[in-house]
């Protein structure tokens, strides 16, 4: 039997939200599975449409841009597909994360569930999508005869780090987008611009000596956590430091937002 005390004075411990997310895993796991099932419900190849979409993107951009940017085709193909794989994960999570609370207002109004269930649902769902996408990238790597190195072992670590950072980020943006409805538009604009500002279709080396645009770009580091091990090397030290700082920073902000929004979220829906 559980005992709950709900009052403004006895605030729950700051990590209770994290504990709740783990405790409520059957809910977000089930929701995520339903999301995937529904998205491709009446199509013949089902969730493999995810893979196919990425393949089409990679084919289209790599053929055109390797010419425009005068890059060797195979090298460019590998760089682009690893980058797009990571970017798809990041942009989908941030885009879907910003509406995760608004879209689930009905649930929050009728059942005593923690807000971060919906952030976890978005992350889980997009990991499933990522696993479909990585099949395409594996094909590309085989086609381009990229050698397997020990750096590949870093991939799960990099993916986990990226997902944790993204989880904390959307735990912040989800409730805030419910409170400030303009924020969602701002985020969606920002993501579109970021796609072109981040080295995904162009390589960081092409910027000459100007490293600020990559070094100060959080998306660059998030992508590198996944792209570098796939391309056979470990992420740069700078990226690891930046990612650790981002993890810590986003965790702190998420804890603050959880604490602040737990009692107020019901007003914002």
């Amino acid at each position, binding site marked *: 039997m559980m005992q709950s005390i709900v009052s*403004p004075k006895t605030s729950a411990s700051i990590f209770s939200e994290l504990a709740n997310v783990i405790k409520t895993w*059957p*809910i977000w796991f*089930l*929701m995520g599975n339903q999301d995937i099932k529904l998205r491709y419900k009446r199509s013949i190849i089902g969730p493999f449409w995810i893979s196919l979409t990425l393949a089409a993107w990679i084919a289209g951009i790599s053929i055109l841009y390797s010419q425009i940017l005068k890059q060797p085709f195979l090298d460019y193909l590998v760089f682009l597909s690893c980058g797009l794989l990571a970017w798809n994960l990041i942009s989908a999570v941030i885009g879907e994360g910003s509406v995760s609370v608004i879209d689930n207002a*009905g649930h929050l109004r*009728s059942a*005593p569930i923690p807000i971060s269930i919906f952030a976890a649902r978005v992350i889980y769902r997009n990991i499933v999508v990522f696993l479909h996408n990585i099949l395409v990238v594996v094909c590309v790597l085989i086609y381009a005869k990229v050698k397997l190195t020990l750096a590949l072992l870093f991939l799960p670590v990099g993916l986990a780090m990226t997902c944790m950072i993204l989880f904390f980020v959307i735990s912040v943006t989800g409730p805030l987008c419910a*409170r400030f409805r303009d924020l969602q538009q701002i985020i969606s604009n920002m993501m579109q611009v970021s796609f072109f500002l981040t080295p995904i279709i162009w390589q960081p080396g092409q910027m000459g000596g100007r490293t600020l645009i990559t070094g100060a770009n959080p998306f660059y580091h998030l992508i590198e956590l996944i792209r570098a091990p796939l391309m056979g090397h470990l992420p740069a030290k700078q990226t690891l430091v930046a990612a650790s700082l981002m993890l810590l920073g986003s965790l702190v902000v998420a804890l603050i937002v959880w604490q602040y929004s737990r009692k107020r979220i019901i*007003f914002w829906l």
Partner: protein
Amino acid sequence: MPFINVQNASFSYPIYNAKSRSLKNAVFAGRAGGRRETGPGSTELVHALNNISLNLKSGDRLGLIGHNGAGKSTLLRLMAGIAHPTTGTVEFEGRVVPLISRGLGINPELTGRQNIELPLRLFGASTAEVQEAHKTVPEFTELGEFLDLPVRTYSDGMRARLSFAICTALRGDILILDEWLGAGDAGFVRKASNRLKTMVEQSGIVILASHTTSILQQNCNKLAWMRKGEIIAVGDPKDVSEAYAAEMRRYGQAGASGKPNEGEEAAKIRQAYIDDQVRLMDEAWFAKDYASARKIAEMLYAKENAARASYRLGTIYYYGRGAEKNLAQALPYFRHTSLTDDPWSIYHQGLILADRNYPGRDEDVARNLLEIAMMRGIRDAAQPLKAMEDRKLAVAS
């Protein structure tokens, strides 16, 4: 042992996105709704609940009655742990099953069977309970093969069955119900109310908000009347609901001449109350409990001048059920102004006017009335018409 302890709980919420005061005033004016005041900054605060204290222990069945916007649902959400009090405390122990919105967690694109798990999980069900529900829900809903079709192909009644069956598959210590007892289509209602009754019996504490006084009287042993975010009376369900109904009547009459919006609202509640009592009355009548039927009918006729009650009184005197048979007394009840178009009333008027025991007998008018009733679909009128015709022929020959 489950308990709920609400101490001096208040709940105020800010209104966002309100562009102009006038719009807000329009929405929140009048008696429906909590008190409001301007909060810090430019946002406006609505005091949905004001200093509520309640102490519920195992065995308590609390009903909440009151206007729309009196704070019933807010109080339920507070007790369910969905909302948190602004000041004061809400303590509870035990598993809470809050049945606040129908169709929670049900996705129309998924099949009925696929939809069983999520609503239960949202209330914290264990895997064993979900498996149990996979057995009981198909049995209870009787949806058969439909259970493997997407819910969007269901009729409203089937949807209601499904969501009702799922949400009631869970056992909780504290059951919170918001306007739930009227759920389901006609054929389902009896089954549903039986199930709910067992659910209520098995739960330690039940809190139930409703507009329907009879439901509250049947299911609760305590009734709280809420107005403007405060509990203004708690006590025996019968006493409180009668006081509430009396207030609604006064209010309805005042509202008709006063502000139109309030009148409408009150009229709705009053009509719901009348409908409810009429239902009880007819149930008693068909269950051959004529004394109770008469009691309700007389009360409704005297206090509300309700047409259905008038008709029922007519039948009570016409058939001599629950009162001595008296045609002269029955007739005026069938002539109630709101019954002039009612075929059954016309039929009964015809019967009385054709009856040889009735001193004011008028066969021509009776024949007319019976023919009208006949045309309006009362087949029973054919037989007395024929009898009159036969008598006329017999007299002529």
